C-alpha cells in the first residue's frame, strides 16, 4: 500500500535531540553537512563519524529505522563508490581492461561512502526527531531577515506547512481512489510501461480534483478566520533557546575547529 512509504517520518519522543530548539537542529544540520564535505583525511573523517554516531544514539530512535532510511540510497552509494574506486589517479595496483585500481581510488571510495551515509543518517535524525511544524517554524524564524527585501517568508512557510500537513491525507486519498478503481476492474500492475502510465489516469485525475477542492476549502476556512498573512501575527508556541542549545553551538564550533585543524595540519588522504 502507498501508506507504507516512509517519508521523513517523525517519531514523537523526549530525547536530547527532541528537546533541542528546531533552529539549533537546522543550523547544526546544515553546518555538519558542510563539515562532512570538508573532511580530507582520516582523523577528520573519524570526528564526523563520531559526531554522527553520538547524535544517532542521543535521538533515542531504534537503529532499524535508520537502516531503513539507508536502504533507499543503497544503489546510489554503490554506484558512486564503484566509480570512485576505479577512477582514482596515481599508480595502479591492479588493472584489468579499463578498470584501474589505485590507492587513491580506494581512499576516494571510502570517503564518498562514509560521507553519503553520514549525510543520510543526519538528515534522518533531523526529520525523525523534529515534527514538520517545528521545522517550518524554524525555517520561518531563520529566514525572517529576508522580510527586509520583501521576500514573503511567512507565506512561504505557511505554504510549506500546509503542503506537509496534507501529505498523509493525500496518500490516504490515493489509496481510497485506487481501491475504488480496482473495484471497477482497473488493472494497475500489468502491461508495459505505456499501459501502466495510462492506467494511472483514472487515479491521478480524481486525486487532482480532490486536491484542488481541498485547497479551495482550506483557503475559505482560513479567510473565515480572518487570516491575512504574517504581519502582526503572534504564535501559540514561541521558539525559545535554552542552555542546551548554547552548549550545542559550542560543541558545533569545536567540531568545525577540529576538522579544519585536521585539514590544515595533517596530510590529505585524497
Amino acid at each position, binding site marked *: 500500500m502507498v501508506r507504507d512509504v516512509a517519508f521523513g517520518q517523525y517519531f514523537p519522543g523526549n530525547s536530547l535531540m527532541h528537546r533541542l530548539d528546531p533552529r539549533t537542529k537546522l543550523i547544526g544540520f546544515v553546518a555538519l553537512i558542510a563539515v562532512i564535505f570538508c573532511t580530507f583525511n582520516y582523523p577528520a573523517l573519524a570526528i564526523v563519524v563520531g559526531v554522527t554516531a553520538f547524535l544517532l544514539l542521543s535521538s533515542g530512535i531504534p537503529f532499524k529505522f535508520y537502516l531503513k532510511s539507508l536502504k533507499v540510497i543503497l544503489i546510489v552509494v554503490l554506484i558512486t563508490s564503484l566509480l570512485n574506486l576505479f577512477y582514482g589517479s596515481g599508480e595502479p595496483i591492479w588493472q584489468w581492461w579499463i578498470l584501474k585500481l589505485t590507492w587513491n581510488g580506494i581512499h576516494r571510495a571510502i570517503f564518498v561512502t562514509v560521507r553519503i551515509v553520514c549525510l543520510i543518517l543526519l538528515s534522518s535524525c533531523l526529520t525523525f526527531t523534529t515534527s514538520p511544524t517545528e521545522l517550518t517554524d524554524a525555517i520561518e524564524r531563520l529566514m525572517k531577515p529576508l522580510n527586509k527585501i520583501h521576500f514573503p517568508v511567512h507565506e512561504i512557510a505557511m505554504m510549506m506547512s500546509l503542503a506537509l500537513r496534507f501529505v498523509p491525507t493525500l496518500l490516504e486519498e490515493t489509496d*481510497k481512489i485506487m481501491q*475504488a478503481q480496482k*473495484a*471497477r*476492474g482497473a*488493472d494497475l500492475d500489468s502491461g508495459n510501461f505505456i499501459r501502466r502510465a495510462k492506467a494511472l489516469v*483514472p487515479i491521478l485525475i*480524481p486525486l487532482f*480534483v480532490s486536491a484542488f477542492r481541498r485547497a479551495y476549502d482550506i483557503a475559505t476556512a482560513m479567510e473565515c478566520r480572518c487570516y491575512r498573512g504574517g504581519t502582526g501575527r503572534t504564535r501559540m508556541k514561541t521558539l525559545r533557546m535554552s542552555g542546551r542549545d548554547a552548549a550545542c553551538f559550542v560543541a558545533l564550533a569545536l567540531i568545525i575547529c577540529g576538522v579544519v585543524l585536521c585539514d590544515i595540519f595533517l596530510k590529505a588522504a585524497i
Partner: protein
Amino acid sequence: MSTVLELKNLSFVYGAGTPFEKKAVDDVSLSIEQGELIGIIGHTGSGKSTLVQMLNGLIKPAQGQVLLDGRDIWEQPKKIRDIRFRVGMVFQYPEYQLFEETVYKDIAFGAANKGLTGDELDQAVRRAADFTGLRPELLEKSPFDLSGGEKRRAAIAGVIAMDPEVLILDEPTAGLDPMGRELLLSQIINYHKEKGNTVLLVSHSMEDIARVADRVLVMNRSRLFMLDRTREVFAHGDELEKIGLRVPQVTKIMQALRAQGIDLPDSVLTVDEAFDTLSSLLKREGKIW
C-alpha cells in the same frame, strides 16, 4: 435458493507485525443466499467496511476463506480481477472516483475493463444509467458538471454496468438530501427486484435498512454480532443499543407502547406498517370504525 457467498472463519489484521496492529475482522463465518438483500450495520470502526472489501478481493484475508459459488476467490490470485466484475463494490462517497470526459465514458469504464465492446457495452451503459435514473442527456456531460446526487448515481451506475452477480453498496445515501436518499433507495430496491441479484447494503440509517433488507448483519468490535431476519434483529432493541446502534424510531415507539401493556407485535419496521397495526388494533377495540 442457493448460497452465493460463503465466508469461513474470515479474519483480517491491519498493520500486522507493527506496534499499530489492529484486528479489523475477527473470525466471521456466514453465508448469503442468491437474491437476498442484506443490510449491514455496525458502529464506526466495527469492521463492516473491511469485511465487505474482502468479499471482492480488494484486500486479502489474513485467515479464512471467501467462497463465491462454492469456490475460493483467492484460488487463482492472478485472476482476482474477474472476481471484482462478479462482486461489484460501490465505495463510500463514490463520486470522487469519476475521472472521464463524459458521464457515458465513466460509466463504461468498468464494463469495458470487463471486456464488453460495441453494442453490448452501449446497452450495459444505458441500462445502468436507466437503473440509477440518470437522464440520457446527462450522459454526454462532463461528470464534474453534475450535481452531487447525480454524480453519486453516475458512480453507482459505473458499477452496475459491469452487471455483477453481487452488488455491495457502502453507505450509498450518506450526505444526500432527503429527496435524493429516497430516490436512490427506491432505485436500489427496483434494481434488486428487476435483476433478482444479491445486494449488500452497508448503512448507518436504521430506517433505510428496516425498509429494504431481508436480513440484517450486525458487526460489533470486529466480530459478527447477529445475522437474522430484519424483524428478529430489530426486536432486540436493547442489545443493539448496548453496542451503540439503535432501532428505527417507529420500531422504538411501538416497543414502548408494547411495554405499556398494549397488545402489539414486538418488531414493527416502517411507519406504514405501524399505521396498519395501530388502526386494526383500534378497530378491534371498537375505538374507530
